[in-house]
């Protein structure tokens, strides 16, 4: 390493002084910039004002030919606008072509020739998607309409990242959706998202094995366990039942199904207190999940299983029963799978003594409108059309997605189009406890403890009481 020798004090001081001065100037400038940018205490109105906050401001929401809310293209914002320009932000829906987003946009533009829709492809990971959207919308810009996760309404509603649709659309519109979906999109009495297409948990089973062993499709969890044990004893599969219990959101989804089957719930009706310890249902559900692993019906790696792990095990023929979302059917029939032609779909079972079917957790996507948008009227029109019968039919018959529009779900053409859609009318739905803006922390409390209990590092009762106190502490302002 070179040495600079011993320099006379005077010049060294001069040089060092220069550097110090430059650094101090940089910091002072930063403080000044940060200071004047952060004192923005604007009133947070929920209408579509453009950005004025902070230094992240700038960037409107796309080119627009229309004017402000309520005065656009001949219609008020009731979904009857006829002109405007929309930036539509959506992550890929399928992995193969044709792209359902583009097909729907083309069909919409044919119906509304003066409204132009531009597609912006979003990240496929839902958490990355949310971060990017937060930055964009918080920065004052962002897309006009965006497709978002079903668990976002409370978080986005409380931050005014989404327009309350119930201000512009009547109750009759919201009644067109399947029961349970609108409740999941509601926060503080307002509906923030329009259900676009939904997903839910199903029971996939090896119909060839059930037939060979003269077994019925299980209607109770107890029946599923006994059938699994028979199948495993005959060495027809390695495992009985694979599901998701890793340390991630999917564990909350799985737990919600068992919990609701046992008669429990997570939050009270005001969403400000935990009900997990109000009765024995949560402990019963979690004890059952743990017993699946401890009895060998489910693999010991379950506490690290996400959808892909469970899917791989089922596709390789290692499991007799699988809990997964709707895409699992087509994945199990794709080339490379060892169970082609051997898979059946059914609603999930429930606990003995409860009425069949068991509850399926709701996944899927809603459509939200950005308050920074300059043409809310056109946005509402677009949202209405995308959740209307024509678009929902396309989604169901052409792309095998589960429609949210109740009449489309029960249409015979849709029901006959694939095995999963045939089961959909027979299922019962339960949403995750996303009515609180702190849902992310609530879910984390649930899935961390559920995964620990399934993995055996916590007893089910300790896990539930830990989750209970964690949730209460979060909801009362504790935590971060």
């Amino acid at each position, binding site marked *: 390493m070179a040495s600079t020798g011993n320099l006379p004090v005077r010049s060294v001081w001069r040089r060092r002084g220069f550097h110090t001065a430059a650094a101090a100037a940089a910091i002072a400038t930063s403080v000044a910039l*940060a200071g004047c940018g952060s*004192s923005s205490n604007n009133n947070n109105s929920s209408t579509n004002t453009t*950005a004025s906050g902070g230094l992240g*401001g700038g960037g409107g929401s796309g080119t627009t030919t229309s004017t402000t809310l309520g005065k656009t293209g001949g219609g008020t914002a009731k979904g009857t606008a006829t002109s405007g320009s929309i930036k539509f932000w959506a992550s890929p829906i399928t992995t193969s072509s044709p792209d359902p987003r583009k097909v729907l946009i083309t069909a919409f533009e044919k119906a509304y020739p003066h409204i132009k829709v531009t597609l912006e492809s979003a990240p496929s990971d839902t958490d990355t998607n949310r971060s990017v959207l937060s930055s964009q919308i918080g920065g004052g810009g962002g897309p006009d309409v965006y497709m978002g996760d079903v668990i976002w309404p409370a978080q986005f509603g409380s931050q005014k*990242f989404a327009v309350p649709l119930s201000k512009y659309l009547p109750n009759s519109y919201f009644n067109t959706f399947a029961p349970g979906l609108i409740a999941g999109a509601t926060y503080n009495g307002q509906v923030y998202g329009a259900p676009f297409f939904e997903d839910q948990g199903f029971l996939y089973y090896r119909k060839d094995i059930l037939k060979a062993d003269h077994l019925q499709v299980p209607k109770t969890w107890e029946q599923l366990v006994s059938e699994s044990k028979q199948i495993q004893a005959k060495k027809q599969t390695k495992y009985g039942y694979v599901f998701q219990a890793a340390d991630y959101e999917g564990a909350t989804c799985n737990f919600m199904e068992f919990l609701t089957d046992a008669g429990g719930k997570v939050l009270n009706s005001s969403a400000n207190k935990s009900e997990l310890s109000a009765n024995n249902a949560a402990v019963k559900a979690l004890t059952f999940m743990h017993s699946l692993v401890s009895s060998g019906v489910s693999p010991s790696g379950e506490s690290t299983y996400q959808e892909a792990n469970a899917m791989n095990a089922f596709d390789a023929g290692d499991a007799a029963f699988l809990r997964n979302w709707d895409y699992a059917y087509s994945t199990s029939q794709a080339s490379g799978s060892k169970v082609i032609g051997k898979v059946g779909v059914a609603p999930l079972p429930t606990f003995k003594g409860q009425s069949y079917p068991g509850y399926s957790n709701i996944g899927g996507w809603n459509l939200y409108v950005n308050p920074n948008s300059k043409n809310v009227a056109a946005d509402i029109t677009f949202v209405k059309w995308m959740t209307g019968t024509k678009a929902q039919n396309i989604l169901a018959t052409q792309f095998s997605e589960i429609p949210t529009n109740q009449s489309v779900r029960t249409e015979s053409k849709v029901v006959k189009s694939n095995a999963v859609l045939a089961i959909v009318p027979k299922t019962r739905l339960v949403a995750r406890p996303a009515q609180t803006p702190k849902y992310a922390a609530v879910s984390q409390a649930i899935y961390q403890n559920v995964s620990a209990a399934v993995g055996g590092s916590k007893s089910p009762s300790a896990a539930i009481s830990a989750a209970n106190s964690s949730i209460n502490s979060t909801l009362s302002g504790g*935590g971060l």
Partner: protein
Amino acid sequence: MAVTSAPPPATSGLPPGVSGRPLVGRHDVFRRQLARLGWGFSAPALIFIALVTVFPIVYSVIISFRHVLLYSTGFHMSGFTLNNYAKIIHYGPWRYAVAFTVGYTVVTVLVELVLGMGIALVLERLSRGRGIMMALLLLPWSLITVISARLWQYLYDPSVGAASKLVQLFGAHNPVILGHNASAIIALMVADIWKTTPFVAIILLAGLVMLPQDVYEAAEVDGASEWATFFRITLPMLAPTIGLAILFRVLQAFGLFDLPNVLTGGGPGHATTSLAILGYQAMFEFNQAWGPGAAIATSTALLVVLGCLCFYRVFKAQAAREVG
């Protein structure tokens, strides 16, 4: 070279054209103007760097002292408050993250020093083949961390991973390496040590090859054993290099993010949630808590700076003692 108080050598080691003398006198007016011109040319780049690095740091510190909410109209900040710091101090996972990050840093740096020292000693004796060996050894270091984390994830997979099969040979039944606290932490350390030991080895090797040979000859003449030579001669002379390696590694290890993010997501529970992961989760993932997240980031930076200052003070005293 070790830290000494000897007079500067004849060739001062400065770049050509720079004399190190004060810029006074007629001849040096020109040099002064050249210097100013240099500053002028680099000013745009320096301003850009200041904006991209200094500004976010300062802004982050400011945010940590205010109550922050994010709306579609931007950040809304109010008041001066120490509440964010109070929140993180009372937050269990933060206290755990501090302990975990510090403990993790200490253990991995120690192991890497020992292993890296061994590798450097071997490499130093290689005359031919040293280049090839160094290139091979640097492969783990050159792999992007996220990619190597994915590879390790496959190795640790409960059903198909080689590491799981290896552990089964030692008697474990159906091991889920990343599913239990202790084994997940050890798995993380193994992946990190595999990646950064070559870096430490290279730094130590650079120091080793610069050591004067005459001291060793004298030791041989005096009949010193190999171990004595190593502990009494090599290590003390290598102290500055070791100090440098430790400094680099500590700064790096404190920012531990990519490995746990890919391998475990901070789990199981919050067992592998380091300070950087906790800050990221607080601000961008679970909590959207900007104030506390900034407080985490600021306090982490403070901890690192304090740690390095203490280390530097101790190290300087130690080195002065050794030489003097």
